[in-house]
């Protein structure tokens, strides 16, 4: 039983880590992008990208984050050989994919 609890905790921890760092990164991108946009700085150290371009990446990252979480759960269930839940995760993943496909 203890082993089971530990296993679930580890799974929760991995998902929590993904969501937390993803949120921090997306927020930082949006904040940085807005700052660049308003101070009219042009960071040409990497390539030609505008402030609103960086904000756009931040927003895309936010939208992708929960989808990545479903992908991570799929992988975690698969690694535990829990095939019923692997199939359920895959199904949710497909529904979201269909939405993207139809919209484009």
């Amino acid at each position, binding site marked *: 039983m203890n082993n089971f609890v530990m296993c679930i905790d580890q799974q929760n921890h991995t998902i929590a880590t993904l969501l937390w760092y993803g949120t921090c990164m997306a927020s930082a991108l*949006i904040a940085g992008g807005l700052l660049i946009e308003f101070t009219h700085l042009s960071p040409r150290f990497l390539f030609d990208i505008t402030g609103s371009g960086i904000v756009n990446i931040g927003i895309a990252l936010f939208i992708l984050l929960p989808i990545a979480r479903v992908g991570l759960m799929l992988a975690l269930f698969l690694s535990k050989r829990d095939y019923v839940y692997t199939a359920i995760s895959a199904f949710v993943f497909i529904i979201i994919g269909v939405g993207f496909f139809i919209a484009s």
Partner: protein
Amino acid sequence: MEISFACWLLLASFGASAFGSTLGMASGIFIVPILTLFFGIDMHIAIGASLVSVIACSCGSASFFLKNRLTNIRLAIVLEIATTLGALTGVFLIGIIPTLYLYILFSAILILSAQQMLAQRNEFVQADTPADRSSWATLLRLHSSIPNYRLGQNVPYQVGCIPLGLCLMYGAGLISALLGIGSGVLKIPAMDTVLRLPIKVSSATSNFMIGVTAAASAGAYFVRGDINIAIAGPVALGSVLGSLTGGRLLMSLPSEKLRILFAAILALLAIPMLMSVFGFNAFQGLRHE
């Protein structure tokens, strides 16, 4: 992008989100009326921005619930089948439904949410009977336990009727995609009454699910080019900062008075939303043009 406009958006969504999260509410229900009524932003643009902020708040607060083992992740992924299907239906319908009806639907949801805010959430008393072996919840191994730190042990709970829960969640996903909100108004009865979850598990699991539900519709809107970066950026940033601040306030405010205040604000927001249906804007003078 204009700096003063972005700052006002950031401040407004920070306030709405901090306020909403003190009672464990998604900020979407405040963000859409603020954007449409005070900023004069088009309803569809407001919905897109609000969905991004709903995702941001869900992801930002999920780690706290996960680390405290309050989220039932198996139940979440099962119910996400229904919420994402509902969201897809919403993405189809939003192009067909006239904006007028969206305003009417939003007003109805505001009034229902106000009413729900005033009613106490009743915790279902779990019986000590063994679980029904043939129920969906048993077959899917959804029964779980929550840690009770005062007792120093895990308290088990059983999950109720999954098929009915799935139907309600489909509706919640649909409303979420159509209005850009977390649709707590449908999820709370579904999770508390139909699935009989302990309140903490219900709040944590619904918060976890809403991120994926909103991502299913926001993703489609993003691909379609319906998400306005200049608006969604500051709103998402303000919301995530607000929800992190609001969560900390949760412990220190008297919640009974806060609930009455909430219900009053929700009901009051319904009035100008309904007026917009008939072509009046109560806040014309405050609009940013």
